[in-house]
Every structure is written in C-alpha cells, then in structure tokens.
C-alpha cells in the first residue's frame, strides 16, 4: 500500500518523466475546461430563482411578498428574479457576494430563520444588510435595468420627477434611500432615516 502511494507521489512530483509534454499540455487544457466550466455552471445554477425558492425560508416569506409587486408581474411581462437584484452581475463582485453567502448556508443548516416568527425577528437585520449593500454600490442592481440617463422626467408623476431631477441627479441620494421595501414588506422602521 505504502509502495503504491510512494509511486503516485513520485509521478505527481515529476510528471514529465512519466508522461509526454504533449499529453500533459492537452490533458491540462481539457481538465481546465471541465473544471472551470463545471464551476461556472454550478455557480449559475445557484444564481436562479428556482434555486433560491427551493428553500422554504425564501419560498414562504420573501418570494410570496415579491409576487404581489410590479417586479414580479406587470403589463409588459418583463420581470426581475431574485439574483437580478441580490447578486451583482459582474464576475468578481459576484464571487465576492457568493463567498459572503456562505453565511446564509450556515443559517440554513442551523435554522436561523426556519420559522415565520424567527424570520420576522430577523427581518430588520436582513433588510439592513441589503440597504447597506445597495447604498455602498450606489444601487448598482437597480441601475442594471433603471438607467438614470434615459429617464424621461416628463413622463413621470410630478412627485417622482421632482425627486429624481434633484436629489438623484445630484448624486446626493441613491435609489435605495427612498425606494425601500419595493419588492418585499418593510420591517419595523423605527429610527430608519427617512421614515
């Protein structure tokens, strides 16, 4: 047994002694495609609404709330899914967010929000994480679809046009500062600025 392990170790240390350079190059190339492709496919599989609502925590709470909003159903049928708003689209940022999400796996395993009561108790904390994230990246996930440069103030309601042409235009405020709770119910907002 030890002999076999030693032999394997020798091959791993100096593969070019045992295998041809061509084999190693082509083999490495193919393995690279398989691993990289597999990694990205798995990553994309976790980046779908179907995956998100495969857990009852998401399906029974936030997904039900989303269903009643304009981001789920509307006259033209264009809709946003969970990752459209909650996962950055750029690859590096996406990976960073996915690493953060390991905390969510922890929460799933230990049942941090596995009942309605526990979820309601954590709602403010969870909401604050998302507000902080969107505030920090200047509401990037909103702006992936809602481009300020192409907003027609004349087609907006008077109130919307006033707010968008002043505070938003000057960069003093970002989308999430005013548009909290557009896709999910708000938590107790005591002490939140602007409420």
């Amino acid at each position, binding site marked *: 047994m030890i002999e076999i392990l030693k032999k394997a170790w020798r091959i791993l240390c100096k593969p070019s002694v045992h295998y041809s350079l061509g084999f190693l190059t082509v083999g490495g190339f193919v393995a690279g495609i398989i691993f990289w492709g597999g990694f990205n496919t798995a990553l994309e599989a976790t980046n779908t609404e179907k995956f998100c609502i495969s857990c009852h925590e998401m399906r029974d709470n936030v997904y039900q709330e989303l269903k009643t909003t304009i981001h789920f159903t509307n006259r033209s049928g264009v809709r946003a899914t969970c990752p459209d708003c909650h996962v950055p689209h750029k690859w590096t940022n996406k990976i960073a967010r996915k690493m953060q999400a390991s905390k969510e796996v922890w929460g799933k395993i230990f049942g941090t929000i596995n009942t309605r009561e526990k979820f309601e108790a954590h709602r403010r904390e969870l909401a604050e994480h998302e507000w902080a994230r969107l505030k920090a990246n200047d509401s990037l996930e909103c702006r992936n679809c809602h481009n300020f440069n192409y907003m027609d103030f004349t087609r907006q309601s008077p109130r919307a046009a006033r707010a968008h042409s002043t505070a938003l235009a000057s960069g003093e405020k970002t989308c999430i500062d005013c548009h909290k709770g557009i896709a999910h119910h*708000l938590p107790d907002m005591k002490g939140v600025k602007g*409420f």
Partner: protein
Amino acid sequence: MKTSKKSFAKITALLMLTGTAFIAVGAVAEKTIRGDHFATLRHAPLNTEPTPPPLTNEKEHHGSLARNYPAQAPIIPHQAHKYQINRKVNQCLSCHDRSRVHESKAPMIAISHYLTRNNHFLAQVSPRRYFCTQCHVSQESSTPLVKNTFVDVDKLVEASANKKQH
C-alpha cells in the same frame, strides 16, 4: 312480453315527469333569489358572479384637489396603493409626518391627527388616525356607479340669497 313493454313505458313516463319537475323547481329557484328585487351595485343576480370591471390606475394630480365640503378628508392626489400601512411602518408618514415635510415638501398631516379623542395632544400621530386610507383616498377615472346629486353648500347659500332678493 306485452306487460314488460307496458311497465317499461310506465317507468319512462315517470322518469320524464320527475325530470321536468326538477327542471321546473330549478327555474323557480333561480327566479326567486332573495334580495334580487333590491337595487344594488352588483347589476347581476346574487347567484351569478359577473365579470368585474377592468382595473383602472389611480390618478396623478398636480398639487392638491379641492374639498367638496369643509369637513371632507383631503383626497390623495397621487398613487398610494403600494404604500405599506401596518403596525411596523406607515409609508405615508415618511413624507407627510412633521419630521419629514421640510424635505418632502408634502403637506403635513393636520394637528387634529395628534389629538386623542379626549382632545389631549400626543407627541406622535394618534393611533386612531394612523390608518390614513380609512379616510383619505386616491381617485380613479371610472364612471360613477350611481348618480350623484350632491350640491356644494356655497351654491345652496347663493341660491337662497338669490331667492330672497327677488
């Protein structure tokens, strides 16, 4: 053979009779739905479910809308159906509260909303006034279901003054 044929005819006749009786009872029952003779806004018998009229959008209006009588709760001149008003949050107050109006430029809720029913002032909106949409409503551009004969009190005063002059 003959008797069996006869009895078969008898049974068929009986079945037909009971069938018509059932249909007749059904027709009578359909005609006499209790309360059908009252005029309602349903415009359909109580035992049928009419297709509801299409939804309309709430109107967006520049500035405030005039009140029809002094005690009328002001009408909401903008869309408001998406605002969450519950135990946790009141999104109307995020613009119309005293602490928010300087920034939102929205009209402040009247001071009467800070009074208890014993006329004691509170620091915050009185719970009895918390649910805005119990009194304040947005407008939709739909045709009225019933004719409205409301006359503004100013018009009545004017009419009676004119009468006295003549």
